[in-house]
C-alpha cells in the first residue's frame, strides 16, 4: 500500500516538475507577451499544484495535508486572475498580438 | 553533497541576478529583478534553517517592497539616465570592500559549530530556559520580544520614523486660498 502511495506521489512530483520546466522554457522562447503569459499561466496552477499534490500524498492524513489542499485552492484561484489582469493591462495599452488581424484594435 | 549543490545553485542565481540588476538600464526590469533577488534570499535563508527571517524576507522584500518600488516608478522615468562621466573610484571601493569581506569570511568558524564563543555565552541559556521562563515555545519570538525587547522597541521606532518621514515629505495638503503664510510654507 505504501509502495503505491510512494509511486503515485513520485509521479505527481515529476509531472509537476515537467510542467514547471516547460513553462519556464515557454516564457523564454515564446515570441509575444500574450503567448508568454499563456506559458506562465500553465506554470503556476498546474506545475506547483501537482508538486503540492504529490507532497500531500507523502504527508498522509494530517493537518499538513489540509493546509496543502488550501494552498492548492488559493493558488488555483489567484494566479489565473493575475495573468488575466496582466493581459487586460496590456490590451489597455494597445499592445497588439503578433498574429492580430488587420481590423483588430 | 545535495546540500552543497543547493547552496551552490542559489549562490550562482543570486550573483546572476545582481549582475543583471547592475547592467540593465530599464528601471522596471531592475524592480522585477529586485523582487526575484529577495525571493532567492528567502530561499537561501530557508535552506539555512532560519524560518522566521525567511518569512519576513519573503513578505517584506518580495511583497511590499516590490509594490512600493513600482509605485515610485510611476512617479519618475522608466529608464536610468547614463552618468556624464564614468569615474573609477566607486568600482574600486566596492571591489576592495568585497575582497576584505571575503577575507574575513574565510576566517570565520564553521557554520553552526557549538563550541564558538558566540554559542556559549547566553545562547544555551536562552534555548534551554525559554519555555520555563516565558512559556513561549518559539525561541525567536521570545528573544525578540522578551529577552531583547529594547532592540525591538528601537526597530519599531525606526519604522515609525520612516512612516512620519514619508507623511511629512510626501503628503499633499490642499492649498487654502485664504491662508497665505502656512507654517510649512506650502
Amino acid at each position, binding site marked *: 500500500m505504501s509502495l503505491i502511495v510512494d509511486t503515485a506521489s513520485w509521479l505527481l512530483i515529476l509531472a509537476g516538475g515537467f510542467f514547471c520546466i516547460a513553462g519556464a522554457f515557454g516564457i523564454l522562447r515564446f515570441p509575444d507577451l500574450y503567448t508568454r503569459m499563456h506559458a506562465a499561466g500553465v506554470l503556476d496552477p498546474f506545475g506547483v499544484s501537482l508538486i503540492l499534490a504529490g507532497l500531500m500524498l507523502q504527508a498522509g492524513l494530517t493537518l499538513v495535508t489540509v493546509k496543502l489542499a488550501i494552498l492548492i485552492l*488559493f493558488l488555483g*484561484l*489567484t494566479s489565473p*486572475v493575475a495573468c*488575466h*489582469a496582466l493581459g*487586460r*493591462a496590456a490590451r*489597455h495599452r494597445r499592445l497588439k498580438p503578433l498574429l492580430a488581424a488587420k481590423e483588430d484594435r | 553533497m545535495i546540500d552543497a549543490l543547493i547552496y551552490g545553485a542559489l549562490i550562482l542565481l543570486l550573483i546572476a541576478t545582481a549582475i543583471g540588476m547592475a547592467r540593465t538600464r530599464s528601471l522596471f526590469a531592475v524592480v522585477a529583478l529586485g523582487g526575484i533577488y529577495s525571493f532567492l534570499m528567502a530561499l537561501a535563508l530557508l535552506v539555512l534553517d532560519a*524560518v*522566521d527571517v*525567511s*518569512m*519576513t524576507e519573503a*513578505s*517584506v522584500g518580495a*511583497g*511590499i517592497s516590490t*509594490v*512600493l518600488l513600482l*509605485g*515610485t516608478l*510611476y*512617479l519618475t522615468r522608466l529608464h536610468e539616465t547614463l552618468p556624464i562621466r564614468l569615474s573609477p573610484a566607486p568600482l574600486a571601493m566596492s571591489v576592495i570592500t568585497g575582497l576584505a569581506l571575503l577575507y574575513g569570511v574565510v576566517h570565520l568558524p564553521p557554520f553552526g559549530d557549538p563550541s564558538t564563543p558566540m554559542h556559549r555565552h547566553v545562547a544555551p541559556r536562552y534555548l534551554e530556559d525559554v519555555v*520555563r*521562563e*516565558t*512559556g*513561549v*515555545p*518559539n525561541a*525567536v*519570538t*521570545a528573544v*525578540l*520580544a*522578551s529577552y531583547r*525587547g*529594547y532592540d*525591538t*522597541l528601537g526597530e*519599531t*521606532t525606526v*519604522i*515609525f520614523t*520612516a*512612516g*512620519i518621514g*514619508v*507623511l511629512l515629505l*510626501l*503628503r*499633499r495638503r490642499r492649498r487654502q486660498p485664504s491662508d497665505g503664510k502656512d507654517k510649512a510654507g506650502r
Partner: protein
Amino acid sequence: MMHREAIPRVVVKLLIPFLLLYALYVQFHGELGPGGGFQAGVIVATAVILYGLIFGLAEAKRIVPPRLIEVLVPLGVVIYAGVGFAGLLAGGNYLDYFVLDPDPVHGQERGIFWVEVGVLVTVSSTMTAIYYAFSGRGR
C-alpha cells in the same frame, strides 16, 4: 482602470477576508511557529494595497481613511512603550514582563502579546501610509 473589470473584482472581494484572517493567524501563532508582528503587519498592509489597486485609491481611502492611518502610526510605538511603563508601575524595571501578573510566566506571555500587537499596528499603518503617499501623487 481595473475597477471596471469583473474577474479581478470578484476574486479580490473573495480573497481579502482570508488575507486578513491569515494575518491574524500569523500574528497570534508567532509564539508557536514562525510569525510575529512584522510579518502580520505586512500582510495586513498587502490586503489594503490590493483593495486599493483593484477598486481605486478613493475607495481604499474611504474604507481606511488617512486620518486613521495618521493616528495608528504612532499608536503602535505608544503601546510598546506603554507596556514598558506598565512594568515600571507594577514594581519592576522598564520593560520587565514578569511583574505584570502574579504568575511570572503568565506575565511574560501577556507582555509578549501586547508588544507584538504594538509592532503589528505600527508596521501595517506605516506601509499603508507609504502606499497612500506614493500613489496619491499621480501624474
